[in-house]
């Protein structure tokens, strides 16, 4: 059992001790250990390092640790070697032995494990030189790679809980609120509401007790910043939460974590236990009169509980149904008591503001959007991963300088921002700065930070349909405009992608969207039409092609696509014949294969299994399927490439 830290002085001494101990270590090997990394085998790699260090008898001088996500998720597993800052990517189990004997012992660089720019072929040794990292400023996320989330001492050594000391020792709750207000941190969960004002409302609300809540119900498909922060650096969020509790006058906090994030739950629970042991949670924190403790609630799979009042219902053990917020949750939240809810990333910013001051913080960003924002840059982009940039950075910088552009030389089409509540931002806005208000102007919204890059092969009608599909399942179903409106939006879009679209459908979609946005009970419904409206606004011609010409320009919508085997390319290999699930292919050895259109279920498996050297299966859209060749015998044995 660790010794409880009872005063700021004790914390200072303890930190000195930990730092001194860490400085004695010559080499540090950090293996990334987030959920993505684990999927790529990082646990095994970590164990192999341990074994190998023991075997080579050098474990004493080397600190080996497993950290959270290193943000360049595409290239997991990442191994960082300090102090040289050597960054190895895509490390596999079979590389471990060599890394230890060559790099750790002989200090040689293994070139094959270095990051290689896919465009220029240039290689980089140090992490900070890689373009993906070079153009970021990871003030919130940066510590993730140095900290073992299961070890509170790591966090303390990096200056952790210093902000809490400062707040408790030198600031009144009101001063903390003033500082947060001055820094103008806006809610990172999407709404962009100023955190300081929310804290103030909760503090001033007449009722007691008060509660503070962390929203880690990151339901936006395509967004995972909060998961990475929560599982990689849980103490930073916890510290932010404790400070918010102090400022607001709450003694009890809740952390609501999505059920789909088991590692985040595990690490958070671990962090809370450690924080209790060390005295950062509990009674008389750091010798002050402030008492505070936290309870973790696991979600159970509902997107709508990301909405504050629905999340609070879930904490009460009820159906996650939003309630009318004409009286704000800051005044009447959990069990009718004043409750302040902040997103994970918002709270992770709080210790920074307290430590470095509002003036420093608000020097970063644009006039109305301060600090940095973390995005999950995913989809059709070369470098996928988590990206933290100052507000004001343009989308182009993110997609091209950091993301390295679109794979396969294809064209950029749009970025989808803000998930099911946001919208598609087309190429003409590539130079738009990251800013809450700028996004709203073009019909999207900041959202929690999912940034899904879409290339020219993405069908925007299909994307709109995709989001409505998602929402029709995720709406709570309480109010009519949202439930029935989404049902009908979905039906109309399904009709269009099936090829049954009619004139007037676009107008109907727009009409209906207007009412859904205006009359729905909560933010889910009020923003549900955004993906449809932005798709129509910026890609109307694609809707028209689907409706008028029965053609899907990108050949994505199965209902408008026919599969066809090019007779002069088919070599009769029977791969499609064997794999067709509906028996829709007629053929055999030495015969040109033919798809029986009436039987085809358009699953695309033939297209997928046709060997690359033939590429005989084609997708057609908008025109008739060519007739079956009369002569089915394959005469040529070779096709020219």
């Amino acid at each position, binding site marked *: 059992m660790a010794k409880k830290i009872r005063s700021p002085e004790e914390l200072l001494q303890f930190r000195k001790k930990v730092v001194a101990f860490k400085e004695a270590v010559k080499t540090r090997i950090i293996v990334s250990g987030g959920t993505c990394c684990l999927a790529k085998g990082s646990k095994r790699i970590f164990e192999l390092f341990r074994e190998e260090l023991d075997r080579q008898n050098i474990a004493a001088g080397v600190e080996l640790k497993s950290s959270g996500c290193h943000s360049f998720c595409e290239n997991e597993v990442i191994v960082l070697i300090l102090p040289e800052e050597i960054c190895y990517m895509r490390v596999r189990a079979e590389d471990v032995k060599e890394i230890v004997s060559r790099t750790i012992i002989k200090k040689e660089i293994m070139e094959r494990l270095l990051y290689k720019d896919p465009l220029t072929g240039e290689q980089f040794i140090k992490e900070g030189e890689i373009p993906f990292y070079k153009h970021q400023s990871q003030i919130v996320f940066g510590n993730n790679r140095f900290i073992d989330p299961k070890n509170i001492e790591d966090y303390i050594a990096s200056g952790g809980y210093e902000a809490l000391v400062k707040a408790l020792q030198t600031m009144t709750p009101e001063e903390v609120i003033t500082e947060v207000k001055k820094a103008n941190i806006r809610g990172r969960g999407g709404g962009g509401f100023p955190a300081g004002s929310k804290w103030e409302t909760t503090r001033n609300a007449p009722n007691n007790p008060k509660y503070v809540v962390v929203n880690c119900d990151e339901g936006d498909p*395509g*967004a995972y910043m909060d998961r990475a922060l929560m599982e990689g650096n849980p103490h930073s969020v916890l510290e932010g939460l404790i400070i918010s509790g102090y400022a607001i006058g709450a003694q009890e906090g809740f952390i609501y974590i999505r059920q789909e*994030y088991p590692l985040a739950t595990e690490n958070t629970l671990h962090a809370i236990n450690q924080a209790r042991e060390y005295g950062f949670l509990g009674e008389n924190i750091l010798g002050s009169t402030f008492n505070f403790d936290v309870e973790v609630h696991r979600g159970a*799979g509902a997107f709508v509980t990301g909405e504050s009042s629905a999340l609070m219902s879930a904490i009460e053990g009820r159906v996650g149904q939003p309630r009318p917020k004409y009286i704000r949750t800051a005044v009447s939240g959990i069990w009718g008591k004043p409750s302040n809810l902040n997103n994970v990333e918002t709270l992770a910013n709080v210790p920074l503001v307290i430590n470095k001051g509002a003036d420093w913080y608000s020097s970063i960003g644009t006039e109305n959007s301060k600090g940095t924002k973390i995005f999950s840059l995913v989809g059709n982009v070369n470098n996928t991963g988590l990206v933290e940039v100052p507000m004001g950075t343009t989308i182009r910088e993110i997609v091209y300088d950091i993301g390295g552009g679109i794979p396969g030389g294809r064209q950029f089409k749009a970025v989808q921002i803000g998930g099911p509540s946001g919208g598609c931002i087309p190429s003409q806005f590539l130079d738009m700065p990251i800013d809450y208000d700028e996004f709203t102007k073009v019909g999207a919204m900041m959202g929690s930070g999912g940034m899904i890059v879409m290339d020219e092969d993405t069908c925007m009608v299909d994307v709109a349909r995709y989001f409505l599909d998602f929402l029709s399942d995720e709406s709570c179903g309480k109010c009519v405009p949202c439930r029935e409106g989404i049902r009908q939006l979905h039906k109309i879009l399904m009709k269009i992608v099936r090829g049954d679209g009619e004139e007037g459908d676009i107008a109907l979609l727009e009409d209906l969207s207007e009412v859904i946005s205006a009359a729905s009970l909560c933010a889910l419904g009020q923003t549900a039409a955004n993906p449809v409206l932005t798709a129509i606004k910026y890609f109307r011609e694609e809707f028209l092609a689907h409706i008028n010409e029965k053609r899907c320009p990108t050949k994505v919508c199965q209902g408008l696509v026919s599969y066809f085997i090019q007779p002069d390319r088919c070599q009769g290999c029977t791969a499609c014949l064997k794999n067709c699930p509906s028996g829709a292919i007629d053929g055999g050895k030495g015969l040109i294969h033919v798809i029986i259109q009436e039987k085809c279920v358009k699953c695309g498996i033939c297209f997928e299994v046709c060997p690359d050297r033939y590429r005989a299966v084609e997708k057609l859209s908008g025109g008739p399927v060519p007739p079956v060749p009369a002569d089915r015998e394959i005469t040529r044995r070779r096709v020219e490439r």
Partner: protein
Amino acid sequence: MSREVAMLGEQMALQEKVEEICAKYNRKESLLIQILLEIQDELNWLPKEALLRLSAQLQIPLKRIYEVATFYKVFSLILRGRNLVKVCTGTACHVRKAPVMISRVTQLLGINPGETSSDLRFTLETVGCLGCCALGPVVAINDEYYSNPTTSKLEKLFNECQ
């Protein structure tokens, strides 16, 4: 042992399990979701008998339990297979051809999303987002995540499932 006696034994065990979990959470009504999660962790689904017992233990209407158990997607009121296969349909996976992954898995397992194979070996589900967006399209088998597995890789993994 007769069939009835065996079933009775199972019933008793189930009741005890529910009571044990309720006690662990101090029979607090507000922890209903957490209690249901734990019951499902134990039993792999939520049998009706467990919910009736829970209603008595927490002294809350059965209606309230069913509303919660059918609202949240994680809960299953029907028996599920021994192996849970999830295909992620998050946006990032979607634009990286998750629909093709679904047809691939559907074909290999012979069941559609939401279904359980008759031998109770597999349950196939699609999920909103697993939060591994950089690895898309993602398939999770019993909570092990796989990034864009090929058909033969999937075949191998499914064969390993008991």
